[in-house]
């Protein structure tokens, strides 16, 4: 491993390994997401039965879209990193300032470790349940389908990586606001509905009215769900898929730059009081 990345890899590892220990939380999350996924699919089924012809995405694809969304729900940036709020309140952030590494990179690596560790067990369980068990019990039609083909795989892998990096870039902005306001409730209350709607987690963005779509497909949160998942079943392919990747990458650059500026400002004003 390159020496430059060693501290950040350590920060990621510490958080990732620690979070992986929370098995009960992972099982509970998995159970909730199975239940919620099943309900969403039933709603879609009813909707497609009455208006299927008008739907922009086929039913098997929307089923896969739903299972993907449930599997990677923990990767959505809808909660600021609780460790940031805690370290601000306890003053532990003081020790963060004593580490000879880039402050943004340090938090970024930790938050990445946090969401990755939360998502990994849930995603594996979901893949087993929706991708393996459902076909085996004869519910093939309601199962998580494999990617559309080699091209879809080749495009989905980078889209998936970018989706995670983008999610952490969004969370870093939330983290900075938490640190500046000393409380995560306000941030989370705004973040959660915004992310769920604008990422396409609630419904794919093409289900929204035509007038809204140009905006929806350009805003940063589209890169969290809508773009990578549509690449997965080749609803986005070729040039459109590459455009999607570029959009994800561009927003990562913008959000990271914003986050760095905001964090530097916040840190300058941060005052650690008391003995």
């Amino acid at each position, binding site marked *: 491993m390159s020496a430059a990345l*060693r501290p950040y890899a350590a920060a990621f590892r510490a958080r990732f390994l620690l979070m992986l220990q929370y098995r009960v939380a992972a099982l509970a999350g998995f159970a909730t997401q199975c239940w919620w996924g099943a309900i969403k699919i039933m709603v879609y089924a009813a909707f497609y039965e009455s208006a299927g012809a008008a739907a922009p995405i086929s039913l098997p694809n929307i089923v896969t879209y739903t299972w993907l969304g449930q599997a990677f729900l923990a990767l959505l940036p809808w909660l600021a990193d609780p460790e940031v709020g805690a370290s601000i309140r306890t003053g532990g952030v003081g020790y963060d300032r004593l580490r000879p590494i880039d402050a943004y990179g340090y938090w970024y690596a930790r938050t990445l470790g946090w969401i990755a560790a939360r998502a990994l067990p849930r995603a594996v369980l979901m893949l087993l349940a929706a991708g393996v068990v459902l076909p085996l019990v004869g519910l093939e039609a309601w199962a998580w389908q494999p990617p559309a083909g080699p091209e879809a795989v080749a495009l989905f892998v980078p889209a998936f990586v970018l989706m995670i990096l983008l999610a952490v870039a969004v969370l870093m902005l939330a983290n900075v606001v938490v640190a500046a306001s000393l409380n995560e409730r306000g941030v989370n209350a705004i973040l959660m509905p915004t992310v769920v709607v604008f990422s396409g987690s609630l419904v794919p963005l093409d289900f929204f009215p035509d007038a809204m779509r140009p905006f929806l497909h350009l805003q940063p949160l589209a890169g969290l769900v809508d773009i990578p998942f549509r690449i997965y079943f080749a609803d986005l392919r070729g040039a459109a898929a590459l455009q999607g990747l570029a959009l994800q990458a561009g927003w990562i650059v913008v959000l990271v730059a914003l986050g760095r500026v905001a964090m530097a400002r916040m840190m300058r004003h941060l005052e650690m009081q008391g003995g």
Partner: protein
Amino acid sequence: MPQILVEGLAKSYRVAERAPGLGGAVRGLFRRRWREVKALVDLSFSLEAGELLAFIGPNGAGKSTTVKILSGILRPTSGRVEVGGLVPYEDRLRHVARIGVVFGQRSQLWWDLPVLDGFDLLADIYRVPPDRYRARRDELVAMLRLEPLLAQPVRQLSLGQRMRAEFAAALLHDPEVLFLDEPTIGLDAPAKLAVREFVKRLNRERGVTVLLTTHDMHDVEALAERVIVIGQGRLLADSSLDALRAGVFAERRLWVDFTEEAPALDIPGVQVRARTGRSLELAFDPAKIPAAQLIASIAAAHAVEDIHVDEPAIEEVIARFYDLHDSSEA
């Protein structure tokens, strides 16, 4: 060039204030009143490499603020600070790589991870080369007797054990300067002794410059040749402990046990501080009446069983010092 240079350091915090009660809370919604708290008003001192300096002062005097500024966590309102030629809050990354910090009331180890894992992570974060890290770690583990604790999660350690681990954690990257903010707070007597012994060795044998803040005067007596007293953000004294004591208390104490009921003594320059049965506690100024002369004159006039001279306890010296400077916390 001194290793630590502080000139005219000032730091104020802005704190929101509101009148108590519902009325105050409602008014606070519309107009917020700010009050400026001056933690440091004007502080100057310098410290040479290899020195060990104790910072004392009442609660709220500005000790922790000073340590936080010196370690680069806080930015001062005005004044000049240099540590090893670097301005801590301007050149944070280079500065913090060369210092170690222990806050007695906080932990820098990972609460849920075994001690050894925490050390490994810190070595990565400070980019300590692996072979240097292993040698350094083994040395610290031996000095601080950490061997049996290495596999335990930090949350399971007692405070004394944890502080030993914290010291090792702060020193893995071999810092030139060590800042200790109340390192013995809450420790039992053996743990305090262990911490003092360790700090002393570090300073003497390795030449690490140490700046510590404390309320425990025994820390100061055991460790520091030099003491800085601050109160209300200003320097009150910068001297050796003995000079401080001499400056505050010219007087010394004489305890006398008589063979019978303690007599009424009337010697010029001598005060009777306490009388219990056959014993007297006397206060005297050695400049006016030397101890030998006082003892001789008492022994000549009365039958004396036991006698000893002592200095006022260090706590008393400091409390008196704060009073003299009117700097106890309001």
